[in-house]
């Protein structure tokens, strides 16, 4: 009955999209109920799975044969295993909270029913993605997620920027999809199957180069969906969508699909050192790049988006570490899902209070005006910077530890990343909630309604308590059937073995430095009401998203446009001429033959017989030869 998980939101989406206007009044409730039902069912299944034997925690639910042609068979099958179970809970749980939040956030939007339909569609697609037992089915969910994100980012289609952002997200994602599609085709060619388990079994005994190619292609797909360098540029623009969308898609779920893909394909990555290294490099670069971008943005959502990039970079990096990191990647993914959703929704709450102004330089001193938002946001903040005891502390710590054990320089880079994270998050907190009020008098900040704050509270609680999952190494244990056993590795720096507590201490110190720097820069000093123009090169660099768009423009867009123009010119002057010339020729020939077209049926019959005669003659000639 795993399919029920998908069925609820899918049905909700279908219902809301086809039902007429009369469902405007209660459509959002249907959608929320569908999502909640899916969550409840997810919990039930999860409990059932807990009750099973440690090694017997995989439930396969085959619905029907989707494709059957020749030797190629694709079953429409859902695999419910520990990894998928975690994801299901995260998606439906956070998803339901965001549904609830959206009831308040989108209250005055005319097209609220449609918005909820898209949300449900997204949840359904994401569930298909994580439950898929076959890469082709996974691809179905993958594309469904892409579609839903396109629809949601561009939900306020009346804004040209939103429409452009949606298009950009769609196009960039397609680049990643090419990798994904090629990977699936390669699997079919090499293994004759695209079933995930079967592919995992077939990896042994396949040429290393093939596996590497497969891993790199999958990584390309993951980069697209998870906004990793070099396909990161869409994520920042995607903040044009309604804030719940940013929370759901661009923080908690969709962008994690890439991480999921890498972890799910662990068999492939385990077998290829090169692919793993590529993943680590991509993760590391994204981690630092995202963090730097986060430092320079004045737009609260874009700052958070940079943070998301950065955090997903952490997960990617962890996933690239192989069996040592898979479980921690997922662990961080879950905790990140909690606190990032929390903070995005908090940002939404702030915007709600500030009449949809997103510029942090117009905020300040909101802690008194928005006490609940401030409190929940603050908890999320503590979680993300890794304040000891909070969920982010455990999850990030584990990744840093594993990275240090893997390679000292990579580990140190992740430590640096943690410091930068602390810096920009403190900056964000300080600019938003601390200091003097900088908003204009006509703005009257007010706390959001209960329907929005309750999800915030729940998510804040989860952000704080997420670390529980690590108790007694539960999560590594839980995921072991899927990703293999996680060895506890020892961190060795300068020939000496560092105990975990020492690593934690190091990280905490670095984080404290970051916090202090930010606090002294933004908390204690007056923040300018407008974005300063005279800034250092580094700041401008960061503000412009590290010139990611410019690079894209020069590397991809310009050459393509030039090529297209050349082809168009050739088409105009070459092909067109040739075709019109041919047409003219045929036309003249036809008018000279028009005399034959006399309208008499019998003349045509004569033609038919002459033709038959000629054919028979030809036949006879062939026979005689």
């Amino acid at each position: 009955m795993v399919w029920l998980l998908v069925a609820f939101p899918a049905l909700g989406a279908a219902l809301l999209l086809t039902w007429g206007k009369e469902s405007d009044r209660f459509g959002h409730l249907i959608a929320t109920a569908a999502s909640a039902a899916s969550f409840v069912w997810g919990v039930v299944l999860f409990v059932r799975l807990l009750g099973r034997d440690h090694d017997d925690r995989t439930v396969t639910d085959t619905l029907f044969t989707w494709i059957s042609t020749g030797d190629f068979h694709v079953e429409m099958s859902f695999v419910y295993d520990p990894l998928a179970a975690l994801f299901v809970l995260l998606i439906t749980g956070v998803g339901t909270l965001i549904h609830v939040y959206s009831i308040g956030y989108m209250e005055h939007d005319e097209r609220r029913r449609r918005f909820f339909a898209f949300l449900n569609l997204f949840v359904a697609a994401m569930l298909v993605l994580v439950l898929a037992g076959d890469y082709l089915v996974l691809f179905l969910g993958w594309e469904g997620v892409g579609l839903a994100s396109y629809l949601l980012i561009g939900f306020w289609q009346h804004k040209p920027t939103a429409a452009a952002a949606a298009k950009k997200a769609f196009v960039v994602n397609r680049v990643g999809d090419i990798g994904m599609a090629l990977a699936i085709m390669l699997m079919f060619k090499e293994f004759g199957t695209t079933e995930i388990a079967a592919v995992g079994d077939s990896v042994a005994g396949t040429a290393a180069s093939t596996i590497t190619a497969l891993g790199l292609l999958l990584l390309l797909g993951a980069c697209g969906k998870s906004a990793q360098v070099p396909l990161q540029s869409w994520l920042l623009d995607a903040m044009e969508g309604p804030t719940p969308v940013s929370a759901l898609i661009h923080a908690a779920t969709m962008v994690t699909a890439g991480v999921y893909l890498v972890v799910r394909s662990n068999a492939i990555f385990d077998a290829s050192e090169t692919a793993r290294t590529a993943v680590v490099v991509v993760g590391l670069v994204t981690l630092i790049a995202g963090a730097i971008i986060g430092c320079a943005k004045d737009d609260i959502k874009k700052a958070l988006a940079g943070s998301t990039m950065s955090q997903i970079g952490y997960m990617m990096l962890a996933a690239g570490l192989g069996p040592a990191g898979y479980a921690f990647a997922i662990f961080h993914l879950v905790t990140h899902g909690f606190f990032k959703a929390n903070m995005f929704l908090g940002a939404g709450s702030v915007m709600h209070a500030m009449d949809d102004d997103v510029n942090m330089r117009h905020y300040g001193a909101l802690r008194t005006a928005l006490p609940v938002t401030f409190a929940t946001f603050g908890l999320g903040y503590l979680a993300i910077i890794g304040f000891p005891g909070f969920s982010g502390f455990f999850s990030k710590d584990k990744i840093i530890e594993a990275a240090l054990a893997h390679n000292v320089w990579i580990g140190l880079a992740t430590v640096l990343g943690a410091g930068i994270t602390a810096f920009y998050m403190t900056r964000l907190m300080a600019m938003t909630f601390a200091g003097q009020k900088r908003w204009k008098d006509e703005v009257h900040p007010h706390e959001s309604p209960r329907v929005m704050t309750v999800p915030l509270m729940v998510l804040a609680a989860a952000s704080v308590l997420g670390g529980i999952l690590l108790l007694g190494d539960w999560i590594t244990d839980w995921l072991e059937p899927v990703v293999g056993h996680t060895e506890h590795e020892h961190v060795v720096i300068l020939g000496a073995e560092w105990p975990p507590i020492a690593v934690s201490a190091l990280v905490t110190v670095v984080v404290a430095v970051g916090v202090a720097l930010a606090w002294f820069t933004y908390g204690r000093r007056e923040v300018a009401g407008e974005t300063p123009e005279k800034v250092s090169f580094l700041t401008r660099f960061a503000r412009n998203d590290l010139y990611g768009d410019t690079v894209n423009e020069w590397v991809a867009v310009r050459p393509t446009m030039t090529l297209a123009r050349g082809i168009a010119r050739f088409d105009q002057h070459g092909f067109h001429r040739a075709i019109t010339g041919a047409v003219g020729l045929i036309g003249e020939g036809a008018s000279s033959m028009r005399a034959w077209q006399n309208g008499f049926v019998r003349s045509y019959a004569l033609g038919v017989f002459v033709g038959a005669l000629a054919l028979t003659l030809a036949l006879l000639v062939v026979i005689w030869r």
Partner: protein
Amino acid sequence: MTAFGVVAPIIVIAALGLLFARKAVHAALALAVVMIGLAVLYAANGAPFLFAVQIIVYTGAIMMLFLFVVMLVGVESGPEAVSDPIPGQRVAASFVGLAFGVMLVIGVGQVLANGFSAPVAAVEDENVEGLAALMFGPYVLAFQFTAALLVTAVLGAMVLAHQDRLTPKASQAELAAQRVRDFGADGKHPGNAPTPGVYARHNAVDVPALLPDGTPLESSVPGSLVKRGQVIRPPVTGPGLGEGNGEAGGGSGPRADGEAGGGSGPRADGEAGGGSGPRAEGEQSE
């Protein structure tokens, strides 16, 4: 091959008749002869079932349909004009036909010269069963398709030949009621028109019937004959009829009385106006 010797010339002559017949009906008859002849050949060549089907389907159904259409449309379709509107069509057609025939002869001759590998072994006794086994075995799909084809063809023909009624068709009861209403309104006789009298000098319908009292019933003569002025008066059948017919309305004597008064119901009414005029004409032309 005695059957062939007898039938083949008939078939060829009939086929040529199809080519040269002036009237469509003659052509259809010629074709029917061809088809029956072919059926005989089928029967003589181990295909008794085809023999029956050929006659029932081709001769009985298809050609009958042709005849129907000929009769429906053929009244004004006279013989074709002598000159062909397409220049050179006849010559070209004859040439192409001849070339085609030659080609066929050569082609089939080629096949025959190569000979057949299979021996002549027609299974005549199990003809029907054998055909059934083939039809419902390997060819069952084709058989089903022909069924679909026939249904489609019937529907298509009905659509093509159908003419929509603008008003609902009057039922028998309505027609009867209308007749009675007409009778009530202006005395139109509700039954059949009376049949003409019989006077066996020649074709007898141009003689009006006589009422029991000896007067001629003018409405018994077909209207077209009256228009043409071909109505004949019986010379002498009753006393005084010969001289009495001229004064129609104002007749003298006791019989005129009876006519005017008794008049035997509605029929007299109907006839009174219509009958007298034409009758005068008829006399003049006679």
